[in-house]
């Protein structure tokens, strides 16, 4: 169960090697989280992540999970929910998997673009619905979805990724409304540029932030049961301005 501050005792991460997710797990383990499932594509990195969290006092299990293999989501994730934590439940699901793709290349390789869309959107719709159903049966829990500012307004430089996040964002918002009153809380997290593996070879954008900062924002959102979290918070203002910039101008902005 979550405590008075919204901190879960058990956590399921989808995308178990995600740097943002692991920063979040570390932060929650330092408070109350004792049981963690890291779901992801089996790899030494996944095992290493599990080992690192064990060193922090959590009881960690890795689960083979591929976002693209939607037909198996129900079975794979169903097992986690059936096992449950000490209290028998999964108190929080962090939907963190995602791929950035390579916009320049993917524009001329539609199948590569489809992979981005399928991972970030289709995979999330499938896994999100499976988890939402299980959380609803429990009558409590948070589903935290890592969206992105890139989904807020499609940009010339990364509209394939951006559109997939736009779809994910809209899906998660709708899901949150559908689950209102069921005890389940859906939080949409919209980080800007985060220094992580995903962005390692890229030029940092203005207001660049860190996985630890995203983790802190998620913890604060859990306390207040916030539905939308921007990281950093100033992006909320910035994006609401950018949203209204006319297309001809927007097109020419160096974004």
């Amino acid at each position, binding site marked *: *169960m979550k405590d*008075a*501050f919204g901190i879960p005792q058990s956590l399921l991460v989808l995308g178990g090697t995600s740097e943002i997710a692991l920063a979040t797990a570390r932060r929650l383990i330092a408070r109350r989280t004792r049981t963690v499932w890291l779901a992801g594509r089996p790899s030494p990195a996944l095992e290493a992540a599990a080992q690192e969290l064990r060193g922090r006092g959590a009881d960690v299990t890795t689960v083979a999970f591929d976002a693209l293999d939607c037909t198996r989501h129900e079975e794979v994730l169903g097992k986690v929910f059936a096992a449950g934590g000490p209290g028998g439940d999964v108190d929080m699901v962090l939907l963190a998997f995602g791929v950035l793709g390579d916009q320049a290349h993917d524009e001329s390789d539609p199948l590569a673009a489809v992979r981005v869309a399928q991972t970030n959107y289709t995979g999330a719709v499938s896994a999100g619905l499976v988890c939402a159903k299980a959380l609803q049966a*429990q009558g*409590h829990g948070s589903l935290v979805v890592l969206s992105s500012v890139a989904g807020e307004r499609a940009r010339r430089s990364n509209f394939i990724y951006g559109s997939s996040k736009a779809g994910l964002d809209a899906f998660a918002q709708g899901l949150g409304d559908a689950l*209102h*009153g069921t*005890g389940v809380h859906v939080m949409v997290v919209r980080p800007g540029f985060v220094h992580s593996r995903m962005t390692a070879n890229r030029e940092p954008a203005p207001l660049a932030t860190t996985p630890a900062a995203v983790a802190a924002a998620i913890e604060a959102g859990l306390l207040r049961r916030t539905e939308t979290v921007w990281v950093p918070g100033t992006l909320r203002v910035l994006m609401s301005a950018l949203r209204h910039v006319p297309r001809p101008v927007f097109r020419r902005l160096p974004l």
Partner: protein
Amino acid sequence: MSSDTAAGTRPHPHRPAPAPAAAPASASGGAMSGGARPSAAGPAGTGGLMARSGSTAGAAAGPPHGAAEGAQRVAVTGWGRTAPTAARLVRPGSYAEAVAAVRACGRAGARGGIPRGLGRAYGDAAQNAGGAVLDMTALDRIHVIDSANGLLLCDAGVSLHRLMEVLLPLGWFVPVTPGTRHVTVGGAIGADIHGKNHHGAGSFSRHVVRLELLTADGEVRTVERGTPLFDATTGGMGLTGAILTATVRLLPVQTSLMCVDTERTADLDDLLARLTATDHRYRYSVAWIDLLARGASLGRAVLTRGDHAPLDALPARARRAPLSFRPGRLPSTPGLLPEGLLSRRSVGLFNTFWYRRAPRAMTGELQKLSAFFHPLDGLPHWNRIYGRSGFVQYQFVVGHGQEETLRRVVRRVSERRCPSFLAVLKRFGDADPGWLSFPAPGWTLALDVPAGLPGLGAFLDELDEEVVGAGGRVYLAKDARLRPELLAAMYPRLDDFRALRAELDPRGVFTSDLSRRLAL
């Protein structure tokens, strides 16, 4: 569990408390009976039941409905309004419906049930995510008032407020009252509550002669005091079953007024010294501490102690209706208040005002009973002032001889500048035998803190370490955040409790968010 393991309990299905013919359960009107379903709860009764979209709004106050399978889920919280979870709200209107509801809770996949009274526990004790919450407040009959012997037989869903309305005119009072009248007898037993008279009268369970308990198997057992099941149930947070009725010993009073002595103490040491020296002279005693005071006035407090006023203490006019009970009520706190209303500054100002307003020393002041015991009840829904994140009440007890720990905690809270309204300090007397009963001889301190205060979780964890280190414990009826690993150290009879529950309720039909969180 079979009856032989809990000596003194005998199951008898579906047949609670045969009320003596003189006061049939269905009696209506007249002071001898609670009548049919009085508005015991009043507008404050819906505490943390937040009917949401698509759910039966106001279900808590609606007509009783039985073990309806299809009952809508509603979001439920405790008085602190933290960590809401959704549950099927079932409000049995008869013992038979209660039995059916418990049976339904035991079905595969049903996620059990937990009894709920008026939701005045601060944390998650009366919540059960995904399962059923059994709202017991429709079972609120007063069956027998034995005026000769001061004994009461009533349903567990009746509120102490209602009992006061009925009993005071007859010259009787509840044996123990908490800081609010809006709690049920079932909640009073389930949390084994204490009042300002704990140093002399012990906790609520000391005055309970027997109770009738609806257990996981759907049986109703008569549970006598002195039996293991009694001791597991008093303070057992609803996890041994649903209490249907209780027989309670009452306190005779001559008037409905209180005769009160008030003193201001300069600091914490002054306060502890006065409580130690003279508490035994008073039936009721409590101190309100200003935890925002610092330096030389660290722990300054207003100490109020008193007793029920005897008839001859009343002025001639008041003697004509010495037992009238008319608590006042202010308009309810608005539903939406901006967070941050409770700044350190505003709370500090309030606390200072409160301290200064109190007389330095005053004796024999006549006060209304409600003003003395339940000042907050005049302001329904005051818990909303904490805004969206809600608040946490931290209450602990440490033994006599652990004053140093108490001082350290007070100093730390003060240094941290928690915007905490007047905290309550009390000197407890002897403990009662409930296995998870909170009170123990020593000092108890309770403070309210907004849950949104940054770093509060970690800070309270540190206070827990102090408390455990001193052999103390925190109060489960207030808890919403304790680290589960500390529970066994705080409650040495925890293993007995778990063992009894494993036997009595092997499938965990009675389950709450609290029991899940702390693996009770």
